[in-house]
């Protein structure tokens, strides 16, 4: 086993000190001289024609500097995301609004109060149209048509088939069908979406202090939407206050602040209010998933299928992308010879969706591993044995061509079973207590075909090392991970290296994107390559000095030296000086790039190995259900994740605990629901269902399964998404184990449990009377 100096150690975050002292500047903290404040007027109707807009009164209000409507924009249709979006959205509504909250007009004023007041003075005449909020209703022949060019409101259909499921069901001894519903769940990052756009009329240049997770990829789209040459835009991405996918598109704060800044020639800041954030921010789509699975008596899976209805909302931001990604999931963890996935992406008059922590994988897993838990019970098998019997092994390729070059799902299951004492405890717990096993798998190094990562490492005459990375930081610890890789390779301490806090695309090299748990593999590999490139240049100088070969050199404990005779060498800083003395130019620069061998997903089948590495996780969760109140208490969690290699257990544990609470929230509390007018119910944290410190069990045991992925840095894989996935289905299964009711519509609220318990009692009574 390789001995590392930093890798594998508990390492606190590199930006922790400015955070705990309040010094760290987030995008929301940016103010510029002469800055104006922008506000967006939003539709009060779910579906309506705009007959007229009168902005004259608003324009006359003192302090108002600009009022814009569609006619002030290029009026182009666009897709808010690069991959597989559909160009169906506009920056401000042209003639129709399609959901409550759709953008109609915007104002820039000297302060927020004036901007708010001006919004009230804009007069819009609407003609209300019939609206539809449920994707199944939207597919009916008489449903209102949301986009003129799309019949039946079905935006896209994805069909992935392998083998013959019908034949598979016939050959099965048990076949089971279940239907699950999950609502939209919101990222709820503590900072709302925010952007400051600064257009300078003299130069025609726009600087955008963006909150986008995709500052590089998103820029050409922004340029197109606002009608500006892309080379005139400079994107500066400061530290972000939590993302979880909520900033994966350019979105309205970026577009509208840019348009207002272009109109006024002044910097304009738009920051969503919390209410606005919870009402309109696109997040994880609502899902209806119908599963059917067939199995042999001995527990061998024969066939499985899913009809996957994605509530696309009014515009296709991520609806297709999310559905494509879910088309991988039926046999990502378990081997199944016959698979059919039918994905429908359906428009409704609700807000559009985005990815949120593993896109919409959590919604799929919530249902699928509940369904399989029931199937194992039908067969009469312990679900853990059932999973182990069918689990993928290293080297397997799934029916969607996902290549599992490392795969530790069996170890994860075995570890949680052992650590939770599953075999002894199950069935012997006190009344109303239950144990549930949950599974999840996700991309652990998402690399859409052609996506690359680049890192530059620079050493100056003081021997200090600086890192330029386009990754940026929004909470997952990527910057710390990159610093760890560079320090490890150069034999330095963590405090000897520093990394850019702000991603300024005029000086920081291109990074494709920041999502899909891709930072560890992409940036980690690029960082190692860059550090090794720098190291090699130092090795050459020092080796020559001591008459040694470059291959014999080592960098460790702050020194560069000959491996066999460590006294032949010098401190890192002196080596940098020696490099300069050798007539070479400082700063010394190391460049690293990682081009992963991954593919794109097919637009109609979802097939293609979209991630260079895949992450797996299993959890056993114990719950107690109060049968008087219906309340569920999560007592303890054992979680095992295949992280490839645990680079920094402190950060891994933190991510995992956050993921568990998010999964717990989606299982028990959270969801976006609408009234009959399409207005969102619950636009504050408590009414939305955001979990607090009172809901988290502190009794969490972490197990890291190290499978040493061949592509990962030091064997590591990204885990920030997969850690959430097993929680919701483990809780659902534990509730069933505790009280024998299966709730198929998430979240599993006390009301639903009480209602199900009542129905079960009535059914039991009836069955009892029928037998006597």
């Amino acid at each position, binding site marked *: 086993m390789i001995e590392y100096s930093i890798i594998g150690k508990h390492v*606190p975050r590199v930006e922790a000190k400015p955070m*705990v*002292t309040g010094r760290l500047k987030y995008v929301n903290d940016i103010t510029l001289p002469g800055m104006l404040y922008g506000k967006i007027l939003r539709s009060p109707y779910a579906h309506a024609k705009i007959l007229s807009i009168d902005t004259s009164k608003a324009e006359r209000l003192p302090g108002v500097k600009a009022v814009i409507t569609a006619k002030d924009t290029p009026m182009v249709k666009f897709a808010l995301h690069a991959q597989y979006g559909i160009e169906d959205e506009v920056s401000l509504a042209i003639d129709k609004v399609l959901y409550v909250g759709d953008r109609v007009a915007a104002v820039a004023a000297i302060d927020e109060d004036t901007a708010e007041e001006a919004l009230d003075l804009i007069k819009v005449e609407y003609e209300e149209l019939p609206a539809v909020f449920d994707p199944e209703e939207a597919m009916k022949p008489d449903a209102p048509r949301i986009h003129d060019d799309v019949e039946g409101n079905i935006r896209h259909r994805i069909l992935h088939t392998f083998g013959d499921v019908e034949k598979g069901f016939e050959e099965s001894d048990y076949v089971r069908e279940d239907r699950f519903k999950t609502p939209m769940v919101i990222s709820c990052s503590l900072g709302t979406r925010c952007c400051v756009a600064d257009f300078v009329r003299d130069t025609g240049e726009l600087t955008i202090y963006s909150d986008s997770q995709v500052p590089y990829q998103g820029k050409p789209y922004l340029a197109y939407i606002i009608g500006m040459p892309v080379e005139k835009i400079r994107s500066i991405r400061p530290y972000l206050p939590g993302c979880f996918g909520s900033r994966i598109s350019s979105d309205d704060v970026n577009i509208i602040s840019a348009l207002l800044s272009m109109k006024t020639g002044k910097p304009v800041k738009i920051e969503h209010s919390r209410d606005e954030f919870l009402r309109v921010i696109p997040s994880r789509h609502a899902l209806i998933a119908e599963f059917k699975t067939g199995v042999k008596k001995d527990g061998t899976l024969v066939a499985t299928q899913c009809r996957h209805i994605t509530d696309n909302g009014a515009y296709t931001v991520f609806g297709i992308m999310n559905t494509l990604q879910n088309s991988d999931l039926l046999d990502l963890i378990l081997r199944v010879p016959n698979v059919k996935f039918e994905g429908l992406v359906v428009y409704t008059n609700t807000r559009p969706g985005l990815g949120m922590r593993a896109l919409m994988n959590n919604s799929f897993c919530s249902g699928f591993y509940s369904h399989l838990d029931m199937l194992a019970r039908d067969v009469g098998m312990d679900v853990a044995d059932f999973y182990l019997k069918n689990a993928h092994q290293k080297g397997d390729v799934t029916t969607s061509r996902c290549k599992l070059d490392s795969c530790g799902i069996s170890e994860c299951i075995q570890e949680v079973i052992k650590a939770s004492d599953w075999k002894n405890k199950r069935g012997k717990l006190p009344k109303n207590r239950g144990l549930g096993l949950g599974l999840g798998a996700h991309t652990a190094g998402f690399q859409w075909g052609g996506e690359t990562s680049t890192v530059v490492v620079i050493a100056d005459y003081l021997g200090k090392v600086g890192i330029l990375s386009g990754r940026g930081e929004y*909470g997952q610890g990527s910057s710390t991970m990159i610093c760890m890789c560079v320090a490890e390779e150069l034999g330095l301490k963590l405090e000897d290296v520093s990394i850019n806090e702000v991603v300024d695309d005029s000086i920081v090299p291109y990074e494709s994107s920041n999502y899909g748990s891709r930072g560890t593999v992409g940036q980690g590999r690029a960082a190692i390559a860059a550090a090794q490139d720098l190291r090699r240049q130092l090795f050459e100088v020092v080796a020559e000095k001591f008459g040694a070969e470059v291959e014999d050199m080592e960098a460790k404990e702050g020194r560069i030296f000959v491996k066999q005779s460590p006294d032949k060498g010098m401190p890192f800083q002196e080596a940098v000086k020696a490099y300069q003395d050798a007539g070479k130019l400082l700063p010394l620069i190391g460049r690293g790039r990682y081009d992963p061998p991954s593919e794109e997903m097919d637009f109609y089948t979802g097939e293609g190995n979209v991630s260079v590495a895949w992450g797996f996780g299993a959890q056993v969760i114990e719950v107690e259900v109060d049968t008087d109140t219906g309340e569920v208490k999560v007592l303890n969690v054992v979680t095992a994740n295949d992280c490839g290699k645990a680079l920094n257990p402190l950060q891994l544990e933190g*991510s995992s605990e956050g993921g568990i609470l998010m999964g717990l929230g989606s299982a028990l509390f959270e969801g976006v629901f609408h009234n009959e007018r399409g207005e969102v119910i619950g636009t504050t944290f408590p009414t939305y269902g955001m979990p607090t410190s009172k809901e988290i069990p502190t009794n969490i045991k972490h197990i890291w399964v190290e499978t040493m992925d061949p592509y990962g840095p030091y064997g590591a894989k990204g885990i920030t998404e997969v850690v959430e996935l097993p929680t919701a289905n483990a809780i659902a299964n534990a509730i069933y184990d505790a009280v024998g009711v299966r709730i198929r519509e998430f979240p599993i609220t006390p009301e639903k449990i009480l209602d199900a318990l009542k129905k079960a009692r009535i059914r039991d009574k009836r069955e009892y009377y029928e037998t006597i």
Partner: protein
Amino acid sequence: MKQEIRLQVNGDFYDVFVKPSETLLDVLRDKLGLMGTKKSCDVGDCGACTVLLDGEPVTSCLTLAVSARGKAITTIEGVAEGQNLHPIQKAFVEHGAIQCGYCTPGMIMTAKAFLEENPDPTEEGIKEAISGNLCRCTGYVKIIEAIKAAAQIIQEER
């Protein structure tokens, strides 16, 4: 009508013109440039804007600036002593109680007031104390650990 008020923040006095409706949060951030106090929900649900008024934690988004006159206001910028982090700040760093960090200032302010009243807290007590401070990243576990550890360090220092 705007009026001039004097606020004492982290030991310094500031004279500011404020509207009667202006919140302490907006004055701290927009007028005094103390950006460490964070705005998240603006309606008192999340605790990100927590500051201390005479040692008592308040959500500054629900506190009118004029009502803070004559009180000692402590914000996150006033917690460390020069270069030396407060034990709670140190514990947050070492225990990995931070991810995106946006809830951190408010969380530390709440913890500071809590530990001054409860030097030897139970886990349940900590959970209850920070239940008005929301965090989306950490799942609270490391925050609870950090506050526990800080309590111990503070007691040992005494």
